[in-house]
């Protein structure tokens, strides 16, 4: 009997043969697969598809890098520290834009992570039977709601209704520098108009947008916590919360971190909702409740049409930086998720 490789027997030449025939006159049978025509066609088509995909992807990456480099050569290091955006006069940088992007994404995470964590635990540990199935479907469904819908809601509903919240926070927590709302001279602003179009509002909307993604990754991780350990915890007299704390959360830690970062990746790249809400400024604004912020993707949406060739290059440099950041976040996330033996196949 020849040995069989577990799954890919035809892909590799058999290197070792368990049983050697002891008669020499018979011609030795080749154990190398002889691909049929259909196989070789299939293989070449599949390889071509893979190559095409890589070709497209690399074309995007290389084109972006190539075009971005012409802008980066002009600006040099100041690209990272300059706040103004005026490629026409060769003064441009992404300091303020990146700051805004990250502010909005962090606010989104502050909104999204507690909600996602709570809901994921609710679904995996508390809800039972039909309710649980419904909630899972609902979460998956919400992940597919178009971002422009969230943008609409943000502009037409949230913006007007969140002003009291923002002013409430700034009134009672204004001693925290982030929550201060002051004008240039340090005068405290209390008017409604000072609180509109802020990073805070954009952050809430983006946060709601990414909650479903995060919830489903976290839920998947939690639901894979081994039942034996859960039962052991219960058998030792633990309450449900005790069980969650000692079994589910440690087991799902990778899922929590991975889900959070996947959400962060999406939050960083979100365009349309942010574009509809914020009032774009090109200075670093620490006061998140105050009007005015910016984000890389909103900047691209705003300026791509009127940009000259060089302006487009500068925008691509900004897009490239955003891409690299998202890439880093995503890879960190997937490596964490993969290492924690959970949730690796949940993100779809």
């Amino acid at each position: 009997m020849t040995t069989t490789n577990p799954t890919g027997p035809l892909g590799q030449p058999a290197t070792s043969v368990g049983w050697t025939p002891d008669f020499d006159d018979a011609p030795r049978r080749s154990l190398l697969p002889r691909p049929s025509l259909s196989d070789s066609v299939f293989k070449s088509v599949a390889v071509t598809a893979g190559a095409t995909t890589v070709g497209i992807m690399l074309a995007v990456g290389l084109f972006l890098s190539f075009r971005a480099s012409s802008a980066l050569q002009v600006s040099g290091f100041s690209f990272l520290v300059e706040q103004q955006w005026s490629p026409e006069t060769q003064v441009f940088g992404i300091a303020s834009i990146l700051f805004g992007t990250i502010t909005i994404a962090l606010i989104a995470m502050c909104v999204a992570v507690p909600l996602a964590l709570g809901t994921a635990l609710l679904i995996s540990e508390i809800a039972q039977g039909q309710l649980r199935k419904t909630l899972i479907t609902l979460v998956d469904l919400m992940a597919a709601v178009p971002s422009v819908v969230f943008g609409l809601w943000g502009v037409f509903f949230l913006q007007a209704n969140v002003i009291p919240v923002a002013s409430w926070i700034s009134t009672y927590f204004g001693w925290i520098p982030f929550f201060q709302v002051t004008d240039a001279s340090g005068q405290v602003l209390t008017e409604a108009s000072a609180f509109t179009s802020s990073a805070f509002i954009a952050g809430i909307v983006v946060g709601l947008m990414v909650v479903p993604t995060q919830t489903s990754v976290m839920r998947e991780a939690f639901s894979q916590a081994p039942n034996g350990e859960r039962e052991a915890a219960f058998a030792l007299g633990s309450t449900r919360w005790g069980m969650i704390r000692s079994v589910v959360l440690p087991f799902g830690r990778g899922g929590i971190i991975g889900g959070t970062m996947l959400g962060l990746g999406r939050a960083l790249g979100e365009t349309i909702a942010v574009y509809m809400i914020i009032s774009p400024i090109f200075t670093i604004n620490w006061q998140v409740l105050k009007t005015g912020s910016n984000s890389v993707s909103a900047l691209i949406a705003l300026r791509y049409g009127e940009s000259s060739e060089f302006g487009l290059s500068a925008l691509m440099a900004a897009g490239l930086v955003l891409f690299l950041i998202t890439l880093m976040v995503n890879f960190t996330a997937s490596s964490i998720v993969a290492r924690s033996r959970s949730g690796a196949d949940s993100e779809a």
Partner: protein
Amino acid sequence: MLIDTLTPGTAPTKTTTVIPSSEGIEIGPRRRVRSVRLDDRFDLIGAGVAGIAVGTLLFGWFTPLSGGVGWTIVSFLSFITFYAVLVGMKADRQEIKDRVVSVLLASAGVILFGALVFVVAYTLVRGQDALPHLNFFIENMELAGPLDPLSAGGILHAVLGTLIQISIALAITIPLGILTALFLNEIGGRFAKFVRTIADAMTALPSIVAGLFVYSAIIVLITHQRSGFAAAMAITVMMLPIVIRASDIVLRLVAGNLREAAYALGATRWRTVWHVVLPTARPGLATAVILGTARGIGETSPVLLTSGVTAVTNLNPFSGPMISLPLQVFDFVKSPEPNMIARGFGTAAVLILLVLALFAVARLIGGRGPGELSHGQQRRVLEASARDVRRITIAADRRQPVAAVPEPDPAPGLPSTPERPAPSKEESSS
């Protein structure tokens, strides 16, 4: 769920295990192990009422606090406090913590689902002004000026634009994406790893950057005009990694023993893929594609840069601007005019309904894991195999009229439900 881990190990021992026949034993309804005591409910209700009462008292009479938000926060906090106290009258600290955390988790769920459902419902409700007009669905905006009422103009052009763009994108994405995923799973090798890394990396590509790429590479350099095709390209660049990744995961879940069985029967690799892997993974692949489609339909930012804005129906994707639903929403609500905003909400409602419909289809097709069959499919498979058995039997009869006819097996070896996901390619081939 807690019980099925108790499957007994089948240790090969000399003594025969006699499984008692379950026939004749009445199986009653399953006992509920967990239940809610009546006073638990009262605790919840009482704490809720007390919380609201305190919030209202503080806001209405005693203090100069004001605003709905403050009221909600104060009421909620006092609700939690009261609940903890009520539980604490009968239970120890562990149980208090448990109960309070349960309530907190439940409130997180309520807040989240409340907010999400509200976002969707808000759009649908605001869309009500435009949706009852039939013309909204069968006309375009060509004959509707800035000041026309809702009884003129519609979004047919945007619906058609969306369908055309997504069809082009799918025509590229489905074959390319699934073939690439097959390449990753069935052929493998070092290049496949590279492809997988690149595809994973590209899922991080912000959609606006995909749009910017198409704008500056295709529109500025080649076609010199915004068109439906350019928009489809942008959607493709955005969707392709999503579809590859999702299909890859689905194909990885196809049980390895199915493939082995096919190879053992002498099937070539292509026949294995065509007759075993793809049919097994079909529901999952369909889900992957449909969810990718939902993402592609809903994204505004790539089409914002590439498709152009038009008020007329343009069925030619290669020439002239072709608007799609999300961009039409964006374009409508930019206007300060109330009718345009109503149209925007109506369009958004149509978009949501379209995405929801796609999602429902995905659920119907792909609600089951790979290899799991619906009742109808199972019946058909059984019928087919019964036919096969008859055919084989008859053929055997003809060839060996004297030989004893073997007992036909009622459940022949068709792919059964895989018990565990197959190990991934890298693990198995190394």
